[in-house]
């Protein structure tokens, strides 16, 4: 390709990318003359260069758009949506011609007469004033030339011999405009635009001087080399550390510092502001809003947040898709919003920020939100999950089905979205770069999508672990915490259906022994091992390894075709001592071990399995420690020991009554005490056994008649209870036992609003004999 043409394409594409944004901004802020001038300048530059290169079709369109913009600049036209729409259409046309130019190196055939005419109609509407371009103005020094249509304002004939005629006036115009700007005394009203343009161009040239266009392949090569340098540095550091009083110690330290700085600097060259991936969004939202009759404002924060270009490319499509979803599914039409008591116009906030070694992108809309019950219904309909399992799943988990292939809750398929293609692609794209995506939604209030992605893919922070004598690296981004399990703590590991679980703060963490997963021989070792708690999406699992070493910055290298199919690995790396070690992929391991779902087809099955497992764990499978007590009812009552903070006995004298409640001074605060049985007389027993519950910052005492026992039992609710304060009835220790609802009592004790049916619960405090308060 001709160098001149290539430069023109690069420059134009860069400018046009910004243009969409600028024009949409302009529509909102018509008074922003600096922006208007910028837009004008860009179009003008394109038009000018087209002339040189003999691109007549492009020039015709650019010229017509330039005329309209000039009239805007001069205040002869005002900004209105249709006009902006036509200008955008012209830019689209220019883009498509540029694309064809890039592909074929020749201007494509096409007729832009309709578009040009539409643009020219605006000029006709400006009320008799003629459609001069500033370039024309150079020729026609007297502004009174009636509706002059010089050569350049019409699409020039496409025959080759006509081209020099087109080129010449533009060249002449340029020369004259330079002359005109230097001759300030000659500047009349029609020079004004030229003058400003001249200044603007020199400013732009100044910015261009401080930047340099470098090929991406050069940067990639540089990155690789610096990676190698860092590896060499690591080796030297190890050698120097092993040798006492080495004469190399100082130079190696110096090398270390410089290498670190160099690494950072090279990484920086690959960084681009995330705003580069956002440039198309305002235009997208504007077009969407126009076509759907919605009012949508897109607010963007943190466009300057830097990201590795590789990651930037990877998130561009997912981002666009999600923004489109928010606009199409999220934000409602003005009448719907009005009916819901919201302002007519919806807002989508798009923000990016650095958080640790990651970039967090949030898309927040104030639209209708996602109807979890509809998702639940669809998921059941599509056979992704069984109805009873779906009912037991919390909404947050239900919303994850949105990321299933082909899943859509849109009742209406629009031309924008709703075909159910996309969210699964969004997630797999983000998974692929080691990121995570979370979705939360409040019906009627809006939806929030949170994407967390690593800053760079080339060099990551990883934890080195060892199992069966082999070392592996685990990317730090997937690690939540580390747990060391000593021999005494082996009781915390339980086996259910062949899967091991670890009791981690009252949750059951499925365990994946790395040794078994990779088919490694058992190494004779101690009984102490380590659990690397990994987070994949919303699922957590514990990777069981023998040893945990240290955290290192590692250079990720691809594994090659022979083992690319192994899901357990994300790549490999070379350590400081020159060894090659494998980088584990938590997401892949989760898929192999079936502890969490990944983008595989049987994800639904696995999700359902996980939910069933969770439900099962809740209901039947795990033995729980249960506290049994007598509260004067025919049946014994039970509460899971995990919910109990303490067991106390309070002497009658410590029970005080105030404000209609029995209170006890407990650990420096007043704790409400209520009876487990509505008919219980709290003063009938001295001392009174009390079960203390606490939840967040609320604490309460539940007065009972007698603490009976603590048993290990499967708690399975056989039937739901009619009485408030009781969750249901379960067979515990061979007897029908009522399992109490601690939340009910907590809320009651703190005077929080209870449902009407809970009336009984109000009795204990009123029904008590009330001797004078102490």
């Amino acid at each position, binding site marked *: 390709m001709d160098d001149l043409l290539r430069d023109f394409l690069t420059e134009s594409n860069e400018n046009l990318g910004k243009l969409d944004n600028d024009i949409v901004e302009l529509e909102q802020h018509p008074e922003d003359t600096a922006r208007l001038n910028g837009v004008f300048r860009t179009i003008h530059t394109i038009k000018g260069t087209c002339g040189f290169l003999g691109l007549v079709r492009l020039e015709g369109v650019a010229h017509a758009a330039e005329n309209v913009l000039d009239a805007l600049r001069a205040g002869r036209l005002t900004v209105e949506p249709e006009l902006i729409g036509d200008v955008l259409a012209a830019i689209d046309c220019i883009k498509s011609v540029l694309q064809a130019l890039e592909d074929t190196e020749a201007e494509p055939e096409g007729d832009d007469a309709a578009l040009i005419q539409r643009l020219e109609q605006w000029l006709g509407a400006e009320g008799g004033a003629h459609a001069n371009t500033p370039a024309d103005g150079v020729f026609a020094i007297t502004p009174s030339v009636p509706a002059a249509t010089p050569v350049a304002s019409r699409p020039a004939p496409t025959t080759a011999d006509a081209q020099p005629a087109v080129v010449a006036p533009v060249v002449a115009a340029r020369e004259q405009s330079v002359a005109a700007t230097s001759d300030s005394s000659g500047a009349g009203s029609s020079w004004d635009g030229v003058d400003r343009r001249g200044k603007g161009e020199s400013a732009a040239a100044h910015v261009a001087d401080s930047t340099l266009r470098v090929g991406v392949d050069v940067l990639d090569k540089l990155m690789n080399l610096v*990676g*190698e340098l860092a*590896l*060499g540095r690591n080796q030297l550091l190890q050698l120097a550390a092993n040798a006492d009083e080495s004469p190399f110690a100082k130079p190696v330290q110096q090398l270390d510092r410089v290498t670190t700085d160099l690494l950072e600097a090279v990484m920086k060259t690959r960084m681009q502001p995330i705003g580069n991936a956002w440039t198309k969004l305002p235009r997208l939202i504007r077009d969407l809003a126009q076509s759907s009759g919605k009012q949508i404002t897109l607010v963007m924060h943190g466009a300057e947040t830097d990201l590795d270009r590789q990651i930037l490319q990877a998130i561009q499509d997912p981002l666009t898709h999600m923004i489109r979803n928010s606009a199409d599914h999220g934000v409602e039409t003005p009448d719907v919003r009005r009916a819901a008591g919201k302002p007519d116009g919806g807002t989508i906030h798009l923000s990016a920020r650095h958080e640790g070694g990651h970039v967090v992108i949030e898309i927040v809309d104030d639209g209708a939100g996602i109807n979890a019950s509809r998702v639940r219904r669809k998921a059941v309909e599509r056979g992704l999950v069984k109805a009873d399992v779906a009912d037991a799943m919390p909404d947050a988990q239900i919303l994850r089905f949105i990321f299933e292939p082909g899943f859509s809750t849109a009742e209406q398929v629009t031309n924008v979205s709703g075909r159910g293609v996309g969210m699964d692609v969004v997630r797999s794209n983000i998974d692929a770069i080691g990121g995570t995506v979370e979705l939360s939604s409040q019906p009627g209030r809006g939806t929030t999508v949170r994407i967390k992605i690593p800053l760079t893919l080339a060099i990551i922070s990883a934890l080195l672990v060892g199992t069966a004598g*082999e070392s592996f690296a685990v990317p730090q981004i997937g690690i939540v915490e580390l747990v060391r399990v000593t021999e005494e703590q082996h009781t915390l590991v339980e086996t259910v259906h062949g899967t091991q679980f670890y009791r981690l703060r009252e949750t059951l963490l499925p365990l994946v022994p790395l040794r078994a997963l*990779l*088919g*490694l021989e058992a190494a004779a070792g101690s009984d102490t091992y380590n659990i690397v708690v990994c987070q994949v999406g919303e699922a957590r699992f514990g990777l069981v390894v023998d040893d945990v070493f240290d955290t290192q910055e590692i250079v990720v*290298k*691809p*594994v*090659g*075709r*022979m*083992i*690319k*199919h*192994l899901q*357990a*690995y994300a790549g*490999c790396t*070379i350590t400081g001592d*020159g*060894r*090659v*070690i*494998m980088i584990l992929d938590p997401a892949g391991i989760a898929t192999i071990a079936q502890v969490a779902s990944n983008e595989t087809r049987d994800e639904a099955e696995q999700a359902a399995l996980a939910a069933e497992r969770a439900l099962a764990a809740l209901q039947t499978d795990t033995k729980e420690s249960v506290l049994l007590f007598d509260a004067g009812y025919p049946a014994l009552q039970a509460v899971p020991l995990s919910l109990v903070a303490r067991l106390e006995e309070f002497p009658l004298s410590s029970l005080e009554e105030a404000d209609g409640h029995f209170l006890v001074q407990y650990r420096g605060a007043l704790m409400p005490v209520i009876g487990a049985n509505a008919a219980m007389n709290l003063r009938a027993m001295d001392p009174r056994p009390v079960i203390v519950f606490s939840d967040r910052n609320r604490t309460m005492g539940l007065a009972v008649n007698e603490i009976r026992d603590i048993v290990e039992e499967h708690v399975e609710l056989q039937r739901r209870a009619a009485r408030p304060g009781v969750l249901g009835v379960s067979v515990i220790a061979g007897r029908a036992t009522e399992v109490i609802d601690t939340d009910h009592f907590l809320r009651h004790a703190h005077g929080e609003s209870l449902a009407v049916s809970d009336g009984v619960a109000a009795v204990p405090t009123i029904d008590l004999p009330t001797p004078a308060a102490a």
Partner: protein
Amino acid sequence: MSSATLASPSGRVSAQLEYVTFRLADQWLGIPVMMVQEVLVAMRIARVPMAPDAIAGFLNLRGQIVTAVDLRKTLRLPVRDAEAEIMNVVVLHEGELFAFMVDEVGDVVSVANDLVDPTPATLDPRWRAACTGIVRRDRGLLLVMSVLEVLRLEQPSG
């Protein structure tokens, strides 16, 4: 020059190719020299758990990752003794480096193309798939191995 056009004694013009020869058990094989980047003595190989049997692991060649392929396993030869010496023939294939683990590396030989016969039909199917021709030499037969086909034998489908 890895390939040259020479006048054969008969006066006909015959192209010839140079091969790096190596031994596996008792058999000598050759790979076109232009595919071979270098020959290495035994190096530390990092095992990759769950990898196909013949993929011995990765080795670090001056910061580049090289996939080690044990040709004895690929060609279903008996496993070599634990102390047996191993040589690595490093080949570059489609931008990726592979180290073929062999028993011994011999000379680079030049063979006229018209001396390369098709592999006999009676050869073991796996060997037939890996080799494209056979050369009768005074010192015994030399099998011409195709890097592409050998790797194809090991490449996991899908």
